[in-house]
């Protein structure tokens, strides 16, 4: 006997009235599908044949107005709302942990404006980012947001967790690229951030919603910068005697120039890369760098890079590796190439200033390798800033526990240990994957008293707490 | 006619791929029915008339789905001989286990007229099981067959040898081994798949066959692998012609160099 009587159907018809019958689903196939995103735990759970966390209603809205009405209904009944883009997030940010509504944004995928004069492009946020990039390419431009999930995630997804692309070192993160946004607030009001981000009319509201992971509102439209395709792109590989030298050289380069790509690998990762390039094992720390733009400038910049590298005993390894890496940059993510269940793995992705970064690297490596036998730790620095860099540090365990609940516990312990080691040494727990469900519990530790600012925003904007519960520590 | 077909599940060669270093990747290989066994099975399905076709395979219990797909193609009965004790069997131990299984089926159920096998499996490539099985069952045999007909109580078949095709005749019961592709195997029908869902796969273990441990598997095998060594995969240092004209000139040189 069902004890919820006919309330389910009453809500369902109300929602159907907003978006149309064909855009509301309670199909089992949908419920299973939306319960598994790219988060390791959700995948492991499905691998064990366990039913995933399920939503009650899956909605495919077509306009911001429809979303506005949906949020009003959700507030009235106090139904949780989980916004879903591509579902390719690795932090479990889109999972319908509290049941209720999944709001799949992908039907809102229209190009709204291409402004060649201002060199911007505006689109609905349900568009898969690759589509936006292709639209830019059609006119000879690029958004220069080229993450590994380019083909998987949506515009909204990239904004919601403050994503980053492989060219970020020159062109910036998504928050540097976004000009303005349209947002549906939890109470159903549709607001716009100011037309341009650089102003002195108070704080930049874009930066409150970028990275809010669907907890403060739903981004429905966004405008981005467009860049000219570079006339010239030059790759160069360098081998440093150790990670310390590599980091110093990287810092020096960043404080003088703007490479588009700068990747520095730790000794564990270097060994396998170098073996692929020259066929023999060689110890050290490998750097892959790209400079791009007007050829005359790039030539000069490359000379400067060489001078800097020489200062830190770096050895020139030629351009072949870089070009090959660029060509195959996403092939790593296809099945058969990437780490797969039943392995347990995670990318800790810590960001810090140059003063602390190396200390953090060693602290995390030691904490994980000494506490968890059978766990490997490899890392590289792939996104650089003038003041610091991030560590893309991965742990891999080939034989995790068979029992799914035990596996979850171990997974969370490894994360706690690694991330706490980072925080204790002045690092920030995440650079560009987001918080989601995975790191939610650690947000208060990270923020301290500053957390009340986020909590205050949450309380004011979403008093019923319906927006993506359990995520982002809110 | 009542026919027994012995089949083996083998790693699919078509699915073998190489990684970037040109090393064969084995983890993605799936098990398929050995191509020559497919031919034997199709020949059996065509010859059976009012009789029956029984498929026997020795292997891992995971072969269940593959056997079911054979039931869906018109096989009447599928027998899976599976037991940890059978692991590591060489051809002689395999033939011995199969012969005991065949005898047990013959006693319990209707007798058989013909046993068909593939001429060899693409993994081991020995082709020794059919003759060994024939001797153990005291039956005449012919290997490497490309065509079989049944004519007035006689089997008429073509056998491929290095120097040509032999036409042969023999009586039943007998064991015949067929060449791959001689009879392309039909697909499953929808009706067959529906029927197959409800059919039982007969599973036989060592004990059920009354075999002693030392008669089967690694223990019952006269031959033993002492060592396995890798072999270079044959990568060569290729020179690519700068243009087609250069390529053509080099090709002419190469052909002229071959002593004929």
């Amino acid at each position, binding site marked *: 006997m069902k004890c919820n009587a006919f309330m389910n159907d009453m809500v369902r018809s109300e929602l159907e009235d907003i978006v149309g019958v064909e855009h509301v689903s309670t199909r089992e196939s949908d419920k299973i599908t939306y319960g598994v995103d790219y988060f390791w735990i959700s995948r492991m759970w499905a691998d064990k044949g366990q039913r995933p966390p399920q939503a009650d209603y899956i909605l*495919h809205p077509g306009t911001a107005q429809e979303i506005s009405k949906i949020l009003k209904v959700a507030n009235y009944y106090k139904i949780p709302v989980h916004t879903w883009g591509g579902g390719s997030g690795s932090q479990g940010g889109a999972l319908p942990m509290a049941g209720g509504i999944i709001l799949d944004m992908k*039907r809102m995928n229209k190009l709204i404006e291409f402004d060649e004069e201002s060199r911007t492009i505006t689109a609905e946020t349900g568009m898969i980012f690759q589509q936006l990039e292709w639209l830019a390419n059609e006119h000879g431009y690029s958004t220069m947001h080229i993450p590994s999930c380019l083909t998987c995630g949506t515009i909204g997804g990239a904004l919601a967790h403050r994503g980053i692309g492989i060219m970020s070192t020159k062109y910036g993160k998504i928050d540097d690229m976004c000009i303005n946004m349209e947002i549906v607030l939890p109470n159903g009001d549709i607001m716009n951030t100011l037309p341009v981000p650089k102003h002195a009319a108070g704080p930049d509201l874009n930066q409150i919603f970028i990275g809010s992971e669907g907890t403060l509102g739903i981004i429905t439209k966004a405008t981005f910068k467009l860049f000219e395709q570079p006339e010239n792109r030059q790759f160069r590989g360098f081998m440093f005697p150790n990670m310390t030298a590599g980091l110093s050289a990287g810092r020096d380069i960043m404080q003088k120039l703007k490479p588009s790509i700068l990747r520095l690998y730790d000794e564990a990762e270097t060994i396998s890369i170098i073996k692929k390039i020259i066929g023999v094992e060689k110890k050290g720390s490998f750097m892959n760098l790209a400079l791009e733009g007007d050829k005359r400038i790039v030539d000069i910049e490359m000379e400067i890079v060489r001078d800097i590298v020489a200062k830190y005993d770096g050895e020139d390894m030629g351009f072949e590796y870089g070009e090959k890496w660029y060509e195959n940059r996403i092939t790593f993510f296809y099945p058969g190439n990437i780490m797969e269940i039943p392995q347990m793995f995670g990318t800790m992705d810590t960001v810090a200033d140059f003063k602390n970064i190396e200390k953090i690297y060693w602290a995390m490596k030691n904490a994980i390798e000494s506490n968890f036998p059978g766990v490997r730790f490899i890392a590289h620095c792939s996104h650089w800033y003038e003041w610091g860099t991030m560590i893309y540090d991965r742990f891999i365990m080939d034989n995790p526990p068979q029992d799914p609940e035990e596996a979850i516990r171990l997974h969370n312990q490894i994360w706690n240990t690694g991330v706490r080691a980072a925080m204790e040494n002045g690092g920030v727990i995440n650079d560009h994957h987001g918080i989601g469900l995975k790191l939610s519990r650690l947000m208060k530790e990270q923020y301290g008293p500053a957390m009340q600012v986020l909590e205050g925003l949450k309380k004011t904007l979403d008093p019923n707490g319906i927006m993506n519960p359990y995520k982002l520590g809110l | 006619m009542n026919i027994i077909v012995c089949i083996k599940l083998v790693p699919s060669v078509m699915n073998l791929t190489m990684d970037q270093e040109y090393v064969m990747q084995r983890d993605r290989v799936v098990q398929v029915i050995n191509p020559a066994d497919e031919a034997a099975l199709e020949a059996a399905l065509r010859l059976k008339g009012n009789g029956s076709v029984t498929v026997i395979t020795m292997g891992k219990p995971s072969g269940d789905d593959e056997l079911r797909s054979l039931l869906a193609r018109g096989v009447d009965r599928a027998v899976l001989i599976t037991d940890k004790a059978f692991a590591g069997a060489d051809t002689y131990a395999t033939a011995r286990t199969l012969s005991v299984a065949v005898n047990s089926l013959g006693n319990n159920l209707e007798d058989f007229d013909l046993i068909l096998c593939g001429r060899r499996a693409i993994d081991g490539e020995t082709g020794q099981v059919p003759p060994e099985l024939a001797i153990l069952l005291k039956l005449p045999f012919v290997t490497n067959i490309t065509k079989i007909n049944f004519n007035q109580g006689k089997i008429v078949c073509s056998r491929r040898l290095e120097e040509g095709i032999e036409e042969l005749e023999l009586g039943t019961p007998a064991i015949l081994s067929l060449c791959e592709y001689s009879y392309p195997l039909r697909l499953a029908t929808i009706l067959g798949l529906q029927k197959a869902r409800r059919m039982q796969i007969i599973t036989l273990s060592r004990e059920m066959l009354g075999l002693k441990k030392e008669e089967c598997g690694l223990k019952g095998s006269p031959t033993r692998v002492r060592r396995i060594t890798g072999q270079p995969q044959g990568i060569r240092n290729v020179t690519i012609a700068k243009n087609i004209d250069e390529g053509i000139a080099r090709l002419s040189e190469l052909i002229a160099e071959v002593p004929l």
Partner: protein
Amino acid sequence: MMSQNSKKHTEACRFCWMCRHLCPVGLTTGREVNTPRAKALLLSMVDRGEKFDKDIAQAMYECVLCGSCTNDCVTGFDPTIFIREARTMAAVEDLLPKAVEEIITNISNTGNIYGVQKPKYTGTAAKAEVLLYIGEVAACKQPTLVTAIMSLLKKADIPFTVLEEEPASATFLGDLIGFVEEVRIQAKDCANAINTSGAKTVVVLDSYEATTMKQRYPEWNCTINADVVTATSFIAGLIEEGKLVPKKITGEVTYHDDSRLARDLDEHEPVRNIIKAMGLNLQEMFLNRRMAKCCGSELLKAYAPELAALTAEGRWEDVNRTTADTLVVVSPQVMNVMGAKVPSAKQIKDLYVLLDQAC
């Protein structure tokens, strides 16, 4: 009951997000279930004990089998393998969507998906070296296309035969219920009919059917003794040999590569050569050749017209972003699917009709 091969592909695809941006259905519905990973996930869950029900079966039919995902996969996985096999499962378990069942009934009654008497066409000779295989879509729905290509063959002095009773090619049945013996038997009958004609070359009008004959028939041991060629490459060849000399016409057109020519047969240039020969200015869509976005198919239109309308609109959006006012197509299926959704500022023309007017 899924084959090991199918399982290998579902296990690989279930947690892979890389090709979803290419799915013509997913791009327009925005539904997560319309991605290759979702279909693989569902089937992998079925393999782990989840019930294969009407709902999951339905999901397997929300796919055009266009092969964009397969084409994208750098590690060689192919979602169409398990989608097709899941359709077989749906047929076996009596879980076919009603609309699909109706089409299967049509095929068993009349040999074509429409359930109508297929119109008859006659060639210029009873036993010519060239056999024109018209196919059910063109025969039933695109008579002008058939007339145009026949007229072109006559103008080029190519005697040709059309089978009096043209058997089905098994293309549609194979897409509906997967590659089962019933489908192979249909293919075998078709191959036999073609072989009996004694033709040396079979010119196949519908690229879907050409693909089946060229790529599936050999797998199923249904050998066609003649060379199977697509109508597009055959006609392009006639122009190249000077047997057809088109007059120049002016205009700006764009061309949609259908899935089979684009990805399975890898045939991209013949049509472009024909367009150039007529002096038309070809404006390429950004996604062309192997990357062309599928516009739907006649089969999808037959069992899920609303979905086919969406996929067609999706492709028209790409057309709309070009400066061309005319979309040129060569496939009777594309003509039917795209032709049903022409935006007001654009028009759609069949290449053979255009060429026939120019010759």
